[in-house]
């Protein structure tokens, strides 16, 4: 029993890491009032750029940096369109996804070595490998938490820091105000547009890192559909986390868990057709969404940042 639980937890954490990065990133973006539906595209771009960089330089650090940069850049385009140019945030996000996915495919067919027909598919490179922490990794069940790769360990710091920043610092206070009531934040002297830009770009950076984890650790390498719709699932995870970074872990664990169960069942050779198992995460997302919405209507209080998805412009000066 214990070995089973331990291995389930291990797979869950590995699968959930990229989701946590992306969820925390999107929480910050949405907290500023901007909805970024471009995450699928950003994650793909993060994955392909990280892998390409690592393939040629063998430097994992460089891969991460580039992935973060790429994520930030794509998010910056979205920010420019939505904040300064006041475009429709839904369509803008979708365009980032379409563009990002297309560009990632393009790069995946172009950045590879000539020996592989310029394709990045089918190659292997340096990866983030798991390394156990002394003593802690021998704990029953929980030991799985301490036998992970560097990026997952970083999550253990990222989440509490993200929570503390949002709820206990002055900057986090300002951010929350901007997302709830930009008119008020503006009147109180907070630079609304700057805040929105900052956290949209920062959020995009984290999402890019989430993509990097996929190609550098979880399913090392590059393939066309490496994200499998994770970028979209993150949107549900943000709602599930009620825009609280600490709760982001819950959702990621839930979906990591579903992934883990899928693996297990397939490995065990069940009669359930693979297709139905593969549908699980997507159906689960819908169910989670319905439950969250229903609960929110009941409790009437915990909800999205009030100004999410709206554009803000002060009357002419």
């Amino acid at each position: 029993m214990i070995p089973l639980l331990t291995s389930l937890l291990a797979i869950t954490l590995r699968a959930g890491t990229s989701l946590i990065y992306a969820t925390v990133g999107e929480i910050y973006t949405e907290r500023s009032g901007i909805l970024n539906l471009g995450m699928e595209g950003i994650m793909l771009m993060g994955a392909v750029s990280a892998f390409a960089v690592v393939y040629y330089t063998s430097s994992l650090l460089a891969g991460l940096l580039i992935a973060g940069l790429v994520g930030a850049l794509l998010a910056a385009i979205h920010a420019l369109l939505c904040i300064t140019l006041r475009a429709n945030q839904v369509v803008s996000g979708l365009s980032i996804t379409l563009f990002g996915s297309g560009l990632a495919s393009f790069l995946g067919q172009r950045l590879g070595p000539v020996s592989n027909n310029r394709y990045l598919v089918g190659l292997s490179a340096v990866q983030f490998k798991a390394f156990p922490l002394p003593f802690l990794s021998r704990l029953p069940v929980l030991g799985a938490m301490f036998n992970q790769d560097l990026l997952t360990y970083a999550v253990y710091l990222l989440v509490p820091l993200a929570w503390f920043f949002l709820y206990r610092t002055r900057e986090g206070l300002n951010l929350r105000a901007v997302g709830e009531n930009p008119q008020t934040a503006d009147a109180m002297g907070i630079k609304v547009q700057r805040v929105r830009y900052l956290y949209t770009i920062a959020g995009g950076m984290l999402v890019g890192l989430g993509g990097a984890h996929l190609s550098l650790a979880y399913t090392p390498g590059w393939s066309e559909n490496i994200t499998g719709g994770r970028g979209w699932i993150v949107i549900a995870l943000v709602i599930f986390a009620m825009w609280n970074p600490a709760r982001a872990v819950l959702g990621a664990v839930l979906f990591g868990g579903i992934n883990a169960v899928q693996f297990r069942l397939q490995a065990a050779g069940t009669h359930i057709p693979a297709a139905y198992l593969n549908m699980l995460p997507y159906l689960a997302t819908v169910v989670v969404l319905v439950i969250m919405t229903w609960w929110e209507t009941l409790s009437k209080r915990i909800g999205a940042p009030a100004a999410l998805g709206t554009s803000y412009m002060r009357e002419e000066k």
Partner: protein
Amino acid sequence: MNAEAQPILVMEKISKRFPGVLANDAVDLELYPGEVLALLGENGAGKSTLMNILVGLYRPDEGCILVKGQEAEIHSPRDAAALGIGMVHQNFMLVESMLVSENIVLGLQDLPLVPKMEEVVLRIREISERYRLQVDPNAYIWQLSVGEQQRVEILKLIYRGAEILILDEPTAVLTPQEAEDLNRVLQQMTSEGKSAVFITHKMEEVMAFSHWVRVLRNGRLMAVKKTGETNPQELARLMVGREVLFRLERKPARFGATVLELKGVQADDDRGLPALKEISFALAGGEILGVAGVAGNGQRELAEVVTGLRKTSGGRILIRGENVSNSTPLKIIRSGVSHIPADRIGMGAVGEMSVASNLVMKGYRKRPISSRFWLHPRRILEFARRMIEAFSITTPTPLTRLKFLSGGNIQKTILAREIDACEGLLVAVYPSRGLDVGATESVRARLLEQRDCGRAVLLISEDLEELLTIADRIAVLFEGKIMGLLPAETADLKTLGLMMAGTQAPGGFDAPGI
């Protein structure tokens, strides 16, 4: 006012232009320490614009500002705050989902990165005590009443060291008693050397609260008067530019059959708390029943329940004898009910669609505008042209989008659409809010017309003067209950004020029916 003291604030020849309108035309203003100045004018006179310039939300095209004798460049609310100037807006600048203490320190420059909230709370309590602005620093804004929220706004300004407080129509959301409390707070502040400017269009406020008054009309400064040396009539004349008739001609009442009846109606608000508690009254054709009360006591819920936009949790609503409680809005519209909602752009009209489209939004289901499934664009245009003329709506073309029209013309469009019959019920909620005197007069005239031709009118209004002028009977709504129902002739401000604050006045109740 001490003649030898220096003014703490001087605004010199301030001008500000917006597309199509000169909002401020070389306006001057002087404010001395320890003084309350009233800025009086109609809607659109330029008072809010002037003050928004002072707090850095707008930049003046011409003119300059001197604070304590020094020329000041105010580019943002932060600059204004640094100079000791702060404003309490009509729409409170508060984040509902955050705490009082968080709202008060939001955006403060010298707040440490990790603020110590216990110290903040302590300081808030000190200021609360001193100025008698009681409020719980650890409450969420959404838990507070409107009056308490206003106190938070004032606390916020004082916490940040404001010497000059600007209040925009502060009593619009207060009961008469709460307004007196505010007056006491202002007196306390001015006795400590602070100054205040408050923006208003109500003469009574000017007389009660201020030491000096400046009257603006059409963007220009018309007069500067010492409050003790003037009177409401003179102020009104300066404000409007002509003699204002305070009473409209009203024909004697001719009541018909009962049109609307509420029996023990109960309903909840958006948060699930009871908003209407056993409301009962009846309304006849040819009668205007005014519902008075400070906003937030159930007015919105009452209008929504009668027009089918909200479910009741008890009781019955009858229109011409038929039970329509919890019917759909469509069924109620078909029973002959028209609704002029409080929220013009958010509910009553679709800004992105044309004037013509908005005009037919009620009648599009009937001939000749539509037959079966089809809409006939030419007939819509004809209909629209007739309405535009009949109601004097100013618009470049019938196909112009509604959002390009002025507030008054938008309201005229809504009226034109809703005033479609001489029978049934018309529910009008704050119909003249935000309109200038001319538009207000015409709205009231239309309501009287409806009444005279036999329609039942339920008029919900915060403006006691409006109700006293055109209503036949007045009911007062307080915390979801009807405190009293009086014939308009016997109602007076004092009695109504008491009822609005929750006291049931002696003899304040007529029989609920007719």
